């Protein structure tokens, strides 16, 4: 009798939990949502986040507040993201491969790993680009590499952060062009990079298309190559690394939305629907493309696969970066 009662109560609890969650999902969201950006306000991730938030919040009927949690190259923001409840009210942007390198670098002592996220949908895939000042002696990427081989360790190459996608791109370049060696200078962000290049304190910059496209088009700077296998539609005159003879140097900064692990599948599906629609909205497309940010929507298996591939690639180069002499 007691056993039966116990079973019944367990069943009742489970049923309640299930229906409870189901109702919670049906009227999700019923209070404001927070969309976290792991970088300070004004950067590319932040701008794109605000655009998608302002469109999506109309569809869900609740405010979607963009919350900036900058610091430590994103580690602060992602640390906070993984500690939130997987109820869909707090989601945030993950940046691949930055998120991956934070996990993979033992010195960072990240409290999370790749399993602690529920990837929801990817928004942007911003290919890497190598650029120099307009009056630089390097006219093509081959010029640059030849110079790096001739005087290894003297050409100052700037990244936007240690173990950023730019940093890994430099290593990929060195790998693809044996004998070429750069003197790597880590700056913090595209704005500082631009300043130091224009001031002549560094010789070449590795960054992403979205950050520099306007200045390339206006002629202030020269882009040597785009690190992709197809040309960027925003800079159609710039050859790809593949065309330049370095097909293995493919690098990009990919930004998408994720939640903490354990988000129920129906909730994820709902969010995917809403966000996908917002990203396909003509206003969103226009605003991002006006700035040269390439949209690449990925959901489900495609996104998971991309995540895993990026993680594996990042692992290889992170290890190399840690062991590379100066």
């Amino acid at each position, binding site marked *: 009798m007691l056993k039966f009662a116990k079973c019944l109560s367990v069943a009742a609890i489970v049923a309640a939990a299930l229906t409870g969650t189901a109702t919670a999902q049906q009227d999700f969201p019923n209070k404001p949502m927070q969309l976290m950006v792991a970088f300070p306000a004004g950067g590319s991730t932040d701008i794109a986040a605000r655009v998608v938030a302002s469109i999506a919040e109309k569809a869900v009927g609740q405010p979607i507040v963009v919350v900036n949690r900058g610091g430590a190259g994103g580690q602060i923001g992602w640390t906070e993201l993984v500690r939130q409840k997987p109820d869909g009210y707090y989601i945030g942007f993950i940046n691949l491969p930055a998120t991956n390198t934070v996990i993979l670098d033992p010195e960072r*002592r990240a409290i999370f790993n790749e399993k602690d996220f529920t990837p929801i949908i990817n928004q942007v895939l911003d290919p890497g680009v190598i650029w120099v000042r307009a009056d630089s002696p390097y006219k093509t990427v081959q010029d640059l590499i030849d110079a790096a081989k001739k005087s290894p360790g003297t050409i100052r190459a700037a990244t936007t952060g240690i173990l950023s996608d730019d940093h890994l791109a430099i290593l990929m370049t060195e790998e693809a062009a044996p004998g070429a060696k750069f003197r790597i200078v880590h700056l913090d962000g595209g*704005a500082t990079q631009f300043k130091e290049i224009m001031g002549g304190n560094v010789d070449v910059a590795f960054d992403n298309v979205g950050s520099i496209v306007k*200045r390339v088009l206006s002629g*202030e700077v020269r882009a040597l190559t785009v690190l992709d296998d197809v040309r960027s539609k925003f800079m159609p005159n710039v050859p790809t690394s593949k065309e330049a003879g370095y097909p293995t140097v493919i690098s990009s900064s990919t930004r998408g939305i994720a939640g903490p692990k354990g988000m129920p599948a129906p909730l994820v599906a709902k969010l995917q629907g809403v966000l996908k629609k917002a990203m396909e909205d003509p206003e969103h497309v226009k605003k991002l493309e006006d700035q040269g940010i390439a949209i690449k929507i990925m959901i489900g298996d495609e996104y998971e696969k991309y995540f895993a591939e990026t993680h594996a690639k990042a692992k290889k180069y992170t290890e190399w970066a840690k062991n590379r002499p100066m």
Partner: protein
Amino acid sequence: MDTLTHLMAGLSAALSLQNFAFALIGCVLGTLIGVLPGLGPAAGTAILIPLTFKLDPTGALIMLSAIYYGAMYGGTITSVLINVPGEAASVVTCIDGHQMAKQGRGGTALGIAAIGSFVGGIFATFALVIVAPPLAQVALKFGPPEFFALMLVGLCLITGLGGRSLLAGLVMAVLGLLIAMIGIDPVRGAPRFTLGIPSLYDGLGFIPVVMGLFGVAEILLAVQQPHRQVIKTDLASLIPSREEWRRSIGAIGRGTGIGFFLGLIPGVGSIIPTFVAYVFEKRLSKTPERFGNGAIEGVAAPESANNAYANAAMIPLLTLGIPSSPTIAVLMGAFIINGLTPGPFLFQERPDLVWAVIASFFLGNILLLVLNLPFVGLWARILHLPYQYVCVGTLTFCIIGAYSLQQNVFDIYVMIACGVIGYGMRKIDMPIAPLVLGLILGPFLEKSLRTSLEMSAGDFSIFFTRPLCLVLLVLAAVVLVASALRLPPREIREASAG
């Protein structure tokens, strides 16, 4: 060049009813943002970016710029009245501004701050119009080594803040530098001194620390007095005395110069010019002991520097497309979202827009003066409320401010702890300002040193082979020696000569 023509065109555009309204709204919002806790200019500006989607670009940029330099003024109000900096750059104004308020001259302090800010802003804008591009090019020469040397100059000035005990000032500065190291190492990514607490990964927040050391400590000190006297501010004392005017004029001039030049250098940030102006003024004064006890120059100099900096910092943005600070980076984001990339080409492509925005700076500075001066007396009256309400109001203010930065309760605890520490320090007369300066300069120093070494592949000679850097290092040495020798006041020298 037809700069004048452009400026005239810009002025007429800025004075259009619509743009005028935007400038006005921006000034009001900016002042409010500066006053309200937890809503720094960067965050406040960022929140308002979506608004600009609906406005035309010129109007949007005018408004956002007005918010930006309006916030510089708003922060002063709370610094003077309740010793809580409304935004980081107003920290220095607390030192003498609040003392003036306690002496019943809060209105005067706010007034001189408004006037000083006005002068600083107008001068910087004039300079922007006349000499912008060549100056900006020079500023570009400031690479990481020069930056390091500049920060070193700032550090050597600390000895001017030590108050009675030079040794205590030095120890506090070192402590500040050390505390600044808490968090993830900016160059290598390794956590330092974080004790396993994730909230410490980004270090101790500057605002909670300063709110605690200044604001909360002030309250703790205030409740001690068993009979709290109500501060009387009569209207006549709102106007500075002739003596005060005399002293302020020089301070405003020097503060403006310092703020302007530092504003041209990208990356300096808004707090450093105010500190430099303050210390410089104190060093030049024949009666430096007045500083920290309500010297009007101690308000006039940093405030002028503040606004001169804010307006000058737009120069690298507009002429070269380089943002000088995180707040300006947000402004740049606003430009970009509206389809405009700031830089030399924007000047050529859309001169109408750029000059309208520049003209609106003139307008904005005037508006700020007109908006704020009349209210100075009103603000000062807040201190007339029974002290319980002022205390509780301040504490509420501080709690919100500390929390809203990162929505983290940890910051409130930090503030409370710093409040206790600040109280203790004030009790035994241990100087707080060097600690704060160390906290500010620490990250800059370390970052620029290590980046310089990355540039030179570990070769320290980079600091001596670059001419500008060498000049700055010599300057740092001069400042240090001059401070250490503590040149005696003129009267003593004259007396011993005679």
